[in-house]
């Protein structure tokens, strides 16, 4: 694996990467809890279709649409202290851009969703107002994966984490470190 240029002392970089890792674990827990809430919300909508936008299952669901963009925003602010994570032309990391855009889409869709449900009091999964929730989350997860793998790969490269034994995983780390996990053209 090619050694990336070190612009800050190794010890400093490991500590900073681990602080990003803390944020990522917290958001991973939030994302896992929302997976549970998908089932809670789904079962609630089979019994009471939609009496209110503020059912407990919706508080839970909507709070993550706000928590995760804010959390990734915090990661983006702190991320500026780690040179190896910068994106093209010293911009924000491409994975972070995708993640934040994806979750911003879901935040925006909360409003769209409530306007729709003002007129149509149902909870059919496939109605158009739900599309952007799902697309936003998928885009956000793709970006988050690219970012998280890059952070982990760098920790492996610095000797702070254990390298993967599977050659395909090792190749993924290598591509992530070069900023080419999804595309060779867009770092």
């Amino acid at each position, binding site marked *: 694996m090619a050694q990336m240029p070190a612009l*800050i002392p190794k010890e400093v970089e490991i500590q900073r990467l681990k602080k990003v890792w803390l944020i990522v674990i917290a958001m991973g827990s939030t994302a896992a809890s929302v997976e*549970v809430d998908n089932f809670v919300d789904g079962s609630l909508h089979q019994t009471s279709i939609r009496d209110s936008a503020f059912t407990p299952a919706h508080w839970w669901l909507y709070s993550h649409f706000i928590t995760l963009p804010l959390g990734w925003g915090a990661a983006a602010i702190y991320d500026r202290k780690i040179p190896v994570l910068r994106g093209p032309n010293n911009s924000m990391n491409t994975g972070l851009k995708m993640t934040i855009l994806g979750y911003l889409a879901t935040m925006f869709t909360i409003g769209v969703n409530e306007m729709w449900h003002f007129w149509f009091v149902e909870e059919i999964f496939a109605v158009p107002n739900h599309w952007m929730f799902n697309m936003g989350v998928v885009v956000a997860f793709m970006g988050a994966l690219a970012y998280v793998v890059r952070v982990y790969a760098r920790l492996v490269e610095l000797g702070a984490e254990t390298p993967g034994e599977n050659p395909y995983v090792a190749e993924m780390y290598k591509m992530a470190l070069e900023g080419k996990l999804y595309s060779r053209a867009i770092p």
Partner: protein
Amino acid sequence: MTLPKGFGSGGGGGSSSADIERMIGKRVENMTGMITVSFWAAILATFGGTAAGYFYYPWAYPTASGHFAFIVLTIIIAIGYIFCVKVMEEGSNKNSNGIVGGSVAGATAFCLFVSLYVGW
């Protein structure tokens, strides 16, 4: 290695361990206290959320459903908590197994108490 502006001896480019400590700030292996407080805050907030559900919205969120959610969320939060502390302390000589074990045991007891006696 040349350090960022404000660090180092000025022009020489050399870095001392004091400079490195100043760049690091609070080290992750010393954050166990903060992580533990966050863990308990998350547990209590989750309890508040589910309690509001079964006390205020019993028509939408039956008590059993709220308890189920609380149990699953306690497990998820505990896994995240353990991960946070173990990853932050790996490679250092810190060991907070007692604090982590105590907190997780306390959360388990609290979760069982709520599930058995609250809201029924």
